[in-house]
Every structure is written in structure tokens, then in C-alpha cells.
């Protein structure tokens, strides 16, 4: 996959995904693979390139901020990259949000989106809304939530079991709940529980109680930990904006694009997962479908 080839087309292509790179970002390849397996064309562009040419963002139908240790995470996780995004890219990202472009921030990318004024969306709109009815402020708001040091005080890598809120507007987590009463489609996980890997030192979700309550009430916390290993408030693992299109989470769907990555793969009944995309890949498919509904048939078949 070429790394720094901006899209040749100058028109806005719904099925084109952008993965934002930066110094120290290290999960851009797996995120790009997720979008590609979901049927999108993908570019990985350095934030410097984007900062110098913010209009490049207008070309993309899906935007991802991958994990890693952007600029070393030395001051705080995601701080420096978030600063660049706030200062240089916010207007273009705001326009993309108004267009309904699905965006995702995974791990470090989540830390970036919460500090860049994109999650959980503008104050006063923390209830379900259509993209074009949200009034994104002209300048990024200060952060409303934070991701702090894990309760145990150190980095942890493991798989976690997650609960999916089937009533969330989040487009990324659609059909992911193995127990979703609204969905008689197919089980997304034959183990009966959604599992994803996590790897972070600063992932404990924190916000004032009123904010937590509002997010939970409005379905803006589509994923919560069953194993709240990092001590997150409300056991929140991921949040979305009121439209459900901008999504950030600490767990890594990009590391679960294939069933063989499941932590108990050697115990799974392989017949039950035949033909079913792994749950991590399902999230990328959901987003690409949401960006380009006409592609729905082809990605399901693929």
C-alpha cells in the first residue's frame, strides 16, 4: 500500500478513506487494512502534509486517527497531535462532520479526538441528532472528557469483554451486539461476547458525573467494559458524537480484522464463524457502508 500518495481524483469520493499518520503513530497500517478489507480505497497521509493542505480532507468519505504514541506522548497521550489537529485541521474536520463523514479515533486517536474538540461533540447537543442539525462551533471547544492513567498506574495489554449498547446511534458498532434484540441477522461473535484487544497506559475514561450521565443516557457510550480493568467512569470504553458518526474508543478493532486473532481461536468452533467478518472488521464495514450506502451489497458479499 503506497504511503504518501494523495488521491489523484479531485472530486469527493464517498468510498475513499483517509488514515492520518504522524510521528509515533504506529497502528496506521492495520487501520488502513481495515478500511481496505471493507472495500474502501485508502490513503495514509502525514499530518504535516494535511496541515499544509487542509483542503485534502475534503476528498475523503471516511477518516481515521490510528493508535500509537504520537510525538512520544511525552507531555500527555495525544496532546501534541491533538494540538496540531485543533490548530490546523479543525475547520476541515468540522466541515467533514457536517457532511456526515464517519470518523474514528482508536486508542491514541481517541485521545486525540477528545482533545481536539471532536468528541463527544459540541456541548448542548448531547442528544441524538442528524449531522446537519448539529451546530459545530467555529473554534474547537476545550476538552469535556479525558483519558487518564489506568487505575493500576501502568500500561496494560490484554483482551477485554465488552457490552454493546444496541440503542446507540453509533454507526460503527451496528450489529455488533451478540445479544442485540433488534437484530436477527447473524451472531457477530459465536463466543456470545464481543471481545477486543486493548493496549494502553492512559485509557481510564474520566469526566464530571453530569457528563457521564448524559453520555450514557443519550446512547453516546456505545461500548462499555465488562471487565473494567482500567477503572473507567461508567466503564466507558468508547464514545460517539450525537450523530453516531464520530467514534472514539480505547480498544483496537483494527487488531481484530481476522478471526485467527481471537484470543481463544484454538478453542472456537470454526464452522460458526465461517463467512462472518471478524467483529473488528465489521466496524470498518459499517463505516464504509454508512459513507457509501450504495456499496452495501458489494461489501456484504465480499
Amino acid at each position, binding site marked *: 500500500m*503506497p*504511503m*504518501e500518495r494523495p488521491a489523484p481524483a479531485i472530486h469527493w469520493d464517498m468510498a475513499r478513506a483517509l488514515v492520518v*499518520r504522524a*510521528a*509515533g503513530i*504506529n*497502528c496506521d*497500517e492495520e487501520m488502513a*487494512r481495515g478500511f481496505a478489507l471493507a472495500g474502501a480505497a485508502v490513503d495514509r497521509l*502525514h499530518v*504535516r*502534509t494535511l496541515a499544509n493542505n487542509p483542503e485534502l480532507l475534503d476528498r475523503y468519505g471516511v477518516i481515521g486517527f490510528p*493508535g*500509537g*504514541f504520537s*510525538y*512520544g*506522548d*511525552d*507531555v*500527555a497521550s495525544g*496532546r*501534541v497531535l491533538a*494540538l*496540531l489537529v485543533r*490548530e490546523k485541521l479543525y475547520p476541515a474536520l468540522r466541515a467533514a462532520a457536517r457532511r456526515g463523514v464517519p470518523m474514528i479515533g482508536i486508542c491514541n486517536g481517541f485521545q486525540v479526538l477528545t482533545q481536539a474538540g471532536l468528541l463527544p461533540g459540541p456541548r448542548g447537543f448531547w442528544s441524538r441528532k442528524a449531522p446537519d442539525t448539529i451546530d459545530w462551533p467555529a473554534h474547537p471547544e*476545550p*476538552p*469535556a472528557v*479525558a483519558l*487518564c492513567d489506568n487505575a493500576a498506574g*501502568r*500500561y*496494560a*495489554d*490484554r*483482551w*477485554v469483554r465488552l457490552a454493546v449498547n444496541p440503542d446507540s446511534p453509533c454507526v460503527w458498532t451496528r450489529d455488533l451486539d451478540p445479544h442485540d434484540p433488534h437484530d436477527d441477522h447473524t451472531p457477530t461473535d459465536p463466543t456470545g461476547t464481543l471481545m477486543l*484487544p486493548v*493496549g494502553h497506559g492512559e485509557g481510564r475514561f*474520566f*469526566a464530571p458525573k453530569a457528563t457521564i450521565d448524559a453520555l450514557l443516557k443519550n446512547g453516546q457510550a456505545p461500548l462499555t467494559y*465488562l*471487565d473494567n*480493568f482500567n477503572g473507567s467512569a461508567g466503564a466507558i470504553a468508547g464514545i460517539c458524537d450525537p450523530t453516531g458518526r464520530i467514534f472514539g474508543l480505547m480498544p*483496537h478493532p*483494527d*487488531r*481484530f*480484522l*481476522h478471526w*485467527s*486473532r481471537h*484470543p*481463544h*481461536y*484454538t*478453542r472456537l468452533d*470454526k464452522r460458526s464463524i465461517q463467512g462472518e467478518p471478524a467483529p473488528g472488521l465489521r466496524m470498518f464495514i459499517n463505516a464504509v457502508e454508512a459513507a457509501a450506502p450504495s456499496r452495501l451489497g458489494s461489501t456484504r458479499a465480499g
Partner: protein
Amino acid sequence: MREAAELGYNLVSASTAKVYLLEGDLTNEQRDAITSALLVNPVTETLATTNGVPGVTLEVHPLPGVMDPAAQSVQEAVYELLGVHVQASTGTRYDLQGLDEVAAKALAARLLYNPVVQALHTEPFHPDALPYGTPYQFKPISVDITTLDDAGLERLSREGHLFLSLGEMRAIQRHYQSLHREPTDIELETLAQTWSEHCVHKTLKSDYHYTGPKDDTIRWQGRPGVTVHGDGSVTIANLLKHTVAAATHELIAEGIDWTLSVFHDNSGVIAFDDDYGVCIKVETHNHPSAIEPYGGAATGIGGCIRDIIGTGLAAKPIANTDVFCVAPPDTRDVPAGCIHPKRVLREIVAGVRDYGNRMGIPTLSGAVDFDPRYIGNPLVFAGCIGLIPRDKIDGAAKPGDRIIALGGRTGRDGIHGATFSSAELSDTHADEFGHAVQIGNAIEEKKVLDAILRARDEGERPLYSAITDCGAGGFSSAIGEMGEKLGAQVQLDRAPLKYAGLTYTEIWISEAQERMILAVPEQNLAAMQAICEEEGVELADLGHFGTPNAELILRYGEHEVGRLPMDFVHGGIPRETLPAVWSPKSPSPRRSPRSGDREQDVSARLLSLLSRPDIASKHWIIRQYDHEVQGNTVVKPLVGPPAEDGASRGPGDASVIEPVPGTGRGVAIGCGLQTRVGDPDRGGDPYLMALAAIDECVRNLVCVGADPSRIAILDNFCWPGVKDAASLGHLVRAAVGCYDGAKAYRTPFVSGKDSLNNQFRTDDGTTIRIPPTLLITGIGIVHDIEKCVTSDAKTPGNAIVLVDGSAGWERLENGPKTAAGVARAIGDGLVRSAHDVSDGGVLVALAEMLIAGSTPSAPIGAVVGGLAVDPFEELPTRYLLEVRVSEVDRVRALVGVPCSVIATLDDSGVLRVGDGTLDVEDLARAWRGPLDW
């Protein structure tokens, strides 16, 4: 707080703050913008610009010149934010209550800072200016050597930190006598670096005169490079060539066609599939880790990763490994000059964690071993595995190529690392060699990696014709190696420096981290520069490859400061014949002497073995490493269904990745370490240690589904001093064991490394010598990841089969055959779980399978019956396999060595042995508790 309490300090409360010192021309508005936008998170943090807390305030700041990655981030961010250049420095403030200043300082010395790289301040540190260094005034230096006598040569070697032998000093003296001039300091340093133990493995490449007992268990007749004398003693020419390397070359001659590059590059390469190769390198970083464990371990893994990036035309790192040997964590008396082993372990784990995780490379395989003799010389083995396109395995600099340095700037840090690593440590080594120790900056290396992979892949051909890393010896080794055939002309004043004041020699031998050297054709320079600018990587043009007489020409400004013929640099080192003696203390033992207390009953012994630090769960370490990044990890280091906390807890034998996702093909990564088998102080034999380590490595890989006929291995010798014949006797035997083991298992060595002076002189003059330690690391190809197997017990009703090929293991009769048989059974889908029997013996292995597979909601237990061997005996070539009862006979037929059903799984959650019953959750607690820090 917890750690302070452990050390007996009555700390009432503690708070910490990050301290940022900024120096620059800033307005108040700009200052406020930096603090509010960059430094403080309004949701969780408050800004404190003055000190208002009662109690003792301590601040820890890096010493001048020590890498401060956070400061670099701040400088970069301030520039992006405001377009202003500032100088930054960062530190940490601790406000401690309940301690007086004396106690607080003592606590700080134990826990909070290391004087080798940091300074402690007892009040807020507000320097007038940050240090910049003073400009260097060029001053050529030559060293008188041609007229020295032997004593003078030895003194020069010692006092100049050259660490060259008298024979080597004489060879240098002769060279300059023939030139009728004295060497310059930079020439002498170049030779010392290039001829250092670290760079040329001269001890292992020496000739040996070996004397063994009459009934030597090694048959010497007919071995490559060996001459047997009338008195029974033998001479072995170039030990490394005729043991480790000979095995590989003979295996290749016998038809192994899947090794692609062995021994000559920065790592060894084997075939993965038709398109890719995988390469592997394992390094040690023992001496730096003894003095500054965090920085030593981090730069150890950083250096090994650069070896992978510097292989062929660059490989992409896809996995890291780490193995540590330290003194027991409950050690009470720590000699002066040593750091407590618990702190050592905490900090080396943090070092590997912070570097590997930031690089985005999964750390997948490892081990920890404990022995009191590692107190002064903890061993830190760091490995890296890479993926490389098969058409990019070979690179060579061409005449006229520019010498391009990429990455970090050059500073005074790490000077004399190569020679330091060849020295014995003592209680004053921290003062003497502090400058050899460094802190790494993983993000710098990540940027360099990103830029290099782009330069490799974006065009039709790579933008460079060769690449290597700056490791030990810095520019001197890297440019010296790349220009070995062509010569090179280097303009030292063109190297970007961290601060002013470096001499030309310091620039040349600095081992500053995160630097690579590329040979770039002139016409590609602009494209290379463009990529580097976008990635934020500094590029410097230091000169060119190719000089008229293949000389190394070193210049500073207008001045030539050194001129050396490459053939003398690389071929001038005299080879020595070293005496080696083997006199075993007692007949070679059949079993390792560590079966626990025989007075106890089986249950008590099992519980106490599970709690031994070497056997106990290493989850505290494993979980701090990212082992999922890159998204390709199939078999994880910890396996099994979710235990109480929702995470897998069982010990995996090896890890498996699918490096090219979608191919279904995997690489298994594992290791073998059998120090006790070889411990001469306890009647062990290093020859058998090598065989046992290879056997263990192969078993670990086979147990997850690797093909034993596609396993490549690597050796890492860590020896105490090698000045005495007995120690060299151990070395000879271990090397011969490597040859015999590799030949028998048909596992070629593809690379290796040694560290040979791991002994510590205490202030009372005693010398603490590590036991001879040989780590074998292996990579094995997994043809179909769908067939991978893990060690967690799966299904009640199944039988646990002991596959026992241990009879005659010393003669290698069954090991290879058993591995092949087990692999066949796994390949045929007959094995539900597999685990190798190693430390603690059969019952410990079974307990581990139950701990891995049993959960409170789906318990698994076992009833042991028919166990005909000592349950705690530690012998090689044993496996436990979980097999359906109806398929036991098929497995037996496939394996071809004795198989016996020793237990049956049930759903009780209890292990029953004789009269004893043990709840699996109790076993789990005993096993997980000791290292659950």
C-alpha cells in the same frame, strides 16, 4: 507509595508533578498559550508554577547531555504551535510528606533517580540557563606508541579504555613502526572499536587448545577444524567457524535450501514464502543495563531493532523478544555498586516496554531466570524479527555513493560503549563508564523507520544501495563496515551535533542512539531529502564511499585527522590460541539438581515449585508489553479462556504471528534457556546445556504448530570472564554442543552474539561470576495458522499423554525424532493442546495446562494416574499433549517414542494426584502471586 512501604519508609503522602523548563524569547501570551494548550489538560490537571506544598520537595532532572525525549517533543510542539524555537528540559517533582530530608533523599536514591543519568535537587530547580556546551577548538592529537615497551602498551590500552590485548597492541605498534609515524587518536580509537570483543567476537573466533578428562564425553575425532594430539588434548581452529557456523554450512551442503543470508549481515534471514524472508537478531545489553537498567534495556532493544532495519536493503521489524537473567527479587545483601535486582527487573521491563511499545512492534516472546550470581551482571537479551522482501536481501555500497546519516544527532553519550561492553564491571564502574550509558528516544527511531521504508518502497527501486545501523562503535563501525571493500572518506564536521564541544574523535566513536547510515547515489539525494523532511527526520551528508586505495580517510574541516587501510582495520587483528580445560566436578548428572524438597508431599512440592520465581507466571511483565500491535498476533504470550479478571492467563510455549495477513502462513517465535544443566559449579556440563537449550527451543516452537524442519536458531553466549582456561573450557564445550545440537535437529544457526566479561568485582575484592549462560532463540515456519495449538487444557474427558523422548537425550537419539512426531500429530489435528515439560517437571507442566484452561465458570480438572516417572524430574524431550481418548493410539503410532497416558481431564476444577487434591484456582494463585508486582 507501595514501593516505599516495601522498603520500610513511612511515607504519609506523595504527589508528583511534571516540571517543564522552557528557555526562549517568549511573550507572556505565548507562554500562556503553551501552558494552556500544550502542557495542561483542563479536565484533570492543574497548573502549578510555584511550590506551595508542605513537606519535602525533590526534583529529578536529567544531567546535561542526557537524552530528554519529552523535551524534544515540547520543542517540536511549541514550534508547530507558535513557530518559535525554544529550548526545553523536563523533570519530575515529588512532594513527599512524612519523611525528613535525609530520609527523602535516601528514598529517592533507592527509587526515584539514578545518578548516572539524573540529578536530584532538594528545592525547585530554576537554572539561569540550560546547558549548551562550549565550542570545540580543533586540536589534532597523536599518540606515541611506536617506542613503548610491553608495559607501556598495556598501560595505554588500559588507561585509554581501549581494552586491547598485548598481542593486539603489538600488532598496532608494528603497523605504525612500518609507517614511520605515530597513530592519531582517532586511528587508534577506530582500531579499538573495530577490534573490540563486541564487534568481532575475537574470543569465539580464536584457536583453542583444549584439554579434557580421559573419558571425555565429547568425541573429538573427525570434527571440523579439530586436530587431536597424542596426549589426548585437541586444537580447534577458529572455534566459532568450526562449531556454530560449521553446522549451518554443513546443513546447507546437505540440502537445507531455505536459509537466505547467514552470519554476514546485521541479522540472519530465512525464507518465509516465495515473496518474503524473515530475519532475526538477538543482542545483549548487559553492561549498560547493570548501571542504568531502564536506559540500558531500552537502548538494547532499540539497537537490535536497528539491526533488523539495517539488514539487506532494510527489513520491517515485526516482533521483539526479551529474556532477562537477574538475581532473586528477595535478595537482601546487595554489594556496593549494584542495583537491587527487584529495581533492576522493574526498570529493564519498563525500558523494553517504553521502547518496543512506542516503536509499534509487538514484544512476543521471552523468559526470566533468577540466580544470585547475576547480582552484578544482570543479563538483558533483546531480540527483533523482521520481514524482508526476498529481492531486497542484498545491498552493497557503490563507489561514489554518498554516506548519509539519518536520525538522531550525535552527542557525547555512549562513548566507549563497544569497549566498555568488553570490560569487567566493578563497584566503581558507574563513575567510570557513566558516559557509555544512554537513554533512548523511540519516536526518533520510529520516524527513521518510517522514512526508510518509504525510501525503500515508493519507487521502483530503493533510493539507496546499502544500509546499516550505528551500533557499537557508532559511525566508526557502521561506515567502516560498509566501506570495507571500497574505502570511505568522511567529513566529520558535517555530523549534526546535540551540543557544541565534541572532538572529531568523539563524533567518530559516539554511540548516540537512533542513527542509521545509508549509501545513497548522488542522483537520489533530493528524493531522499524530500521524504526525510516530510517525516521530520534529519539527514546529513558525511562524505562518500570509494577511495583510491580502499583507505578510510577521516577529515575535520580542512584537516585530515586519520588515514587507515581498510585491510588493516578489518584484517589486522592477530588471532590467538587460547588454553581451555574441562575438568567436570562430578560425573555428568542425569537430571538437573533442583527437584525441590523431597520431605514434602507431592501437593506441597507442586505448590512450592509453582511459586518459584523462575516458574511463576510472568504476566506482570507480559501485560506491560504490547503484543497485539500490527494486528498479526495469532498465538499470544498468554493463552486460554478469560480467567477471573477476563483475561487469558496460561503460559504460551511460543508465539505465532501471521506477518503477511491473509496468507495463512505464520512464524513461531520461542527460546530455550537451560543454564542449570550447564552450571559447572553444580556438576553441570555446558555441552549438555547447549543440547538441552536447543531441544527446549524446538519443543516450544513445535508445541504451537511450527514445522520442525523449518526452524532457524540463534546463539547468545553470556560468559563470566574468559581469562581462565576453565571458563574457556566451558565455552568450547557449549560451542561444540551448539554444533551437535544444530546438526541433529537440523536447525541452522543464522546469527548470534556473545557477551563475555560478565563478572563483578566487589569493593572487598571478591569476584562474582555469572554462570555460563546460553540463550537459544528460534523462529519456525507455521504452514497453516489454522492448525496452531495452545497449551490451555480444552475438554473434559480427554487424555493427557506424556510423550517421553528423554531416554538417551545426551546422545541426541530421540529429540529430533520426537519433535517431528509431535509435529505430525499436531498437523493431523489430533492434538487439542500441547505443552513442553521444562522447569519443574511433568506435574508443573500439567498444572500450567489446567491453570490456562480452567475458569470459574467452566472448570477443568484432572486425575493423575499411571505416571511412571518422577513428577518433578526435569529432563529434555518431554511433551504433554491433550488428545481424545479414542485417538491416543494414533498419536502413539505417529510419535514413535514412548507415550503414556498420565492423566484424564474432567470438569472438577481440581487436580488429583494420589491422595492429594488441589483446587486449580489455588494452583493459579500460587503460580501468579510471586511476580504479581
